[in-house]
């Protein structure tokens, strides 16, 4: 069990993480969401024993790892946001190097190298230099390296950034299998809400250095149980129409979408007639209307005031 207790990190006067409490039970898959600058990376770095917290503690099986980082390090796998590999080396040379720093040798090293390369589907390309790999292949190898020493916990910091949908799907399936079938404990951060929804048992949402909400997907969506969203597809964007909607007391929030506007309104109080009236007044041509129950994205927006990918 990995736990952060009242964790705080201050850089000069800036409080990057403030009183963060996080719990990862054995075999759980936890999502950590937050807009850019929310403090996710700092929090992860403290858990990874890379940065000392200003206050608070991180425990592994109820023992502090601040004083004894070596309790956690051998059972921790890390997939950094960057491609943390040597691009001038081949996939096999990378795996072998990182295996050796985890004290794997001889036959065991060979077997583990073969196993992880097979797991990420790179056995055929293991002799090729990493710099010749596609983004998706590099991301897969980035994960393989973290799994070499058979960790109990894996921390994945946006492991699917900038890759094609097929590679992304491959990675998500792999992480889900590792978690559900092999009992690997996962802490996962992403800018893709659907990834977290698909993979994680529980979700923590951070903003301005604080954990502002946590729970299962359903528990979080329940925060917005009294609301629903209306998606208006517009022929072209009309700024005066958006402003008029924002002034309307019955509409709680208006956000710009790629093809129109999204409105959050109180449940059972949609006032669609008023919306159409305003559209007519401002010459806005509505081509489609979609009424939905709120998504996790809406919850995130509600809590942080920002979209996840802002």
């Amino acid at each position: 069990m990995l736990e952060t207790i009242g964790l705080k990190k201050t850089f000069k006067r800036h409080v990057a993480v403030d009183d963060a409490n996080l719990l990862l039970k054995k075999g759980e898959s936890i999502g950590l969401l937050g807009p850019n600058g929310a403090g996710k990376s700092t929090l992860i770095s403290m858990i990874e024993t890379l940065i000392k917290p200003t206050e608070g503690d991180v425990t592994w099986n109820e023992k502090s790892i601040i004083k004894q980082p070596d309790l956690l390090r051998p059972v921790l796998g890390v997939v950094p946001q960057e491609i943390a590999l040597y691009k001038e080396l081949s996939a096999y040379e990378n795996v072998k190097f990182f295996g050796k720093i985890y004290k794997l040798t001889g036959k065991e090293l060979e077997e583990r190298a073969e196993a992880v390369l097979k797991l990420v589907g790179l056995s055929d390309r293991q002799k090729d230099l990493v710099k010749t790999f596609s983004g998706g292949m590099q991301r897969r190898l980035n994960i393989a390296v973290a799994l070499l020493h058979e960790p109990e916990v894996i921390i994945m910091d946006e492991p699917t950034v900038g890759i094609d949908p097929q590679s992304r799907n491959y990675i998500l399936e792999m992480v889900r299998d590792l978690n559900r079938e092999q009992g690997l404990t996962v802490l996962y951060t992403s800018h893709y809400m659907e990834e977290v929804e698909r993979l994680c048992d529980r979700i923590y949402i951070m903003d301005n250095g604080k954990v502002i909400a946590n729970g299962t997907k359903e528990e979080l969506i329940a925060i917005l149980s009294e609301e629903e969203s209306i998606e208006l597809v517009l022929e072209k964007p009309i700024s005066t129409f958006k402003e008029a909607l924002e002034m309307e007391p019955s509409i709680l929030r208006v956000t710009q979408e790629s093809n129109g506007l999204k409105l959050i309104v109180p449940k059972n109080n949609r006032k669609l007639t008023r919306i159409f009236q305003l559209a007519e007044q401002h010459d806005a041509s509505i081509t489609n209307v979609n009424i939905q129950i709120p998504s996790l994205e809406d919850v995130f927006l509600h809590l942080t005031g920002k979209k996840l990918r802002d």
Partner: protein
Amino acid sequence: MWNFFVKDVKVLWRDRTELMVMFLMPFVLMTILGFALQGVMGGSSESFEMEVALVVQDEEEEGKEKLEIDLSESQLPEQARSALLEVSNNFSPASILDELLTEDLQDQLSVTQMREEEAKTAIDQQEIDAMLIIPDDFTYDTLKNMLLGEEVSSTLKIVKGPHANFSASIFHTIIEQFSESFNLEAAITKATGTQVASSPSVEMEVNGETLSVTERDPVSSMEYYTIGMAAMFAFFTASTIASKAFTETQQQVFSRILISGKRPSAYLSGKALAVFLTVLLQLGVLFSLSSIIFGSFRPLSIEDMIGMTTISIFYALAIAGIGALLTTLTVKYQSNTIAGVFSGAIVSIFALLGGSFIPTAGFPEAVQKLGDWTPNGMAMNAYMQSMQGLGADYIITNIWKLSGFILIMVLLSLVLYPRKKVGA
């Protein structure tokens, strides 16, 4: 450490741009500078001045009298005897040499007659750049060789001040030219006369080692720039390894290594060993190419090879130390600026002060002294001394200086390594 070393060497060697910087650029530069600045190293500069001591142990009149006795006791016909006596009375090798130094070369040389002990002290105190000893029986032996064809030769001895390598080399060349032309004239004398001798009448000895004049040339511009450029470009290997460390921090590979719990010493020593072996190879390749293509460093004796290899090992260790320190500072501040400033500015300053671009003899004394403490300056001095056959005693001073430098680099690297930032 071995795992880190293998990885660092592979990463370094698979970067073609870096390979060009490490091997091709110094080779091109040494070729250009070596050919372009041939004149600078020839010692013909009008503005050049040096202080030398002349130690005359030879008694010219006594030598001539001894030769006269030899002639009178010889079996030669009377006519030949009187002709040779005539030559002997009018031909004074020591005086010719004295005249050459004190009159013909008075713009370049300031010659003071001293006793040998006085001259040694003056060299130690850096008051003079070199001394020339005209040995006892120089006149007698030289004339006997020339006129009677006996297999004796007299040896002029040059002692160079270790502080004045460059100017002392020029003095060496002057004396060498004198003995060459003297031997030529002597050969003509013999050819026109009746006697024939196979050995040169005047030989030279430099700092205790006897050499015939053709064996040991002064350092050529090509040799000088081979050493200069090799010493300078070795620095770039250190900055390159630090830049690779920066990439490791940026791409979070360094975090991965820290999280694995590996000791800093394994990471640092892997880098240092990679720099050490790369620099050693760099020096070896450049020296070999210069020798094969341009005929530098020849003839190369076993002693010379041992000397140059020893210096190269210590210099490569010093550069490995710099590489370790730059790596430490790079990962500590997570910035490439330090390696950038080193390769962009400090290397140029070191190269200039240490004499990689031009010999430092023309610089003010304080600047020269500063240059003697730069790593490339220490190595260059040691290489020059080794090539001039000065022997281990002279080289060892610079080896000690390099060892001190290595120690400082290693200690600084270990002390400054950012272990406190990690939750250990």
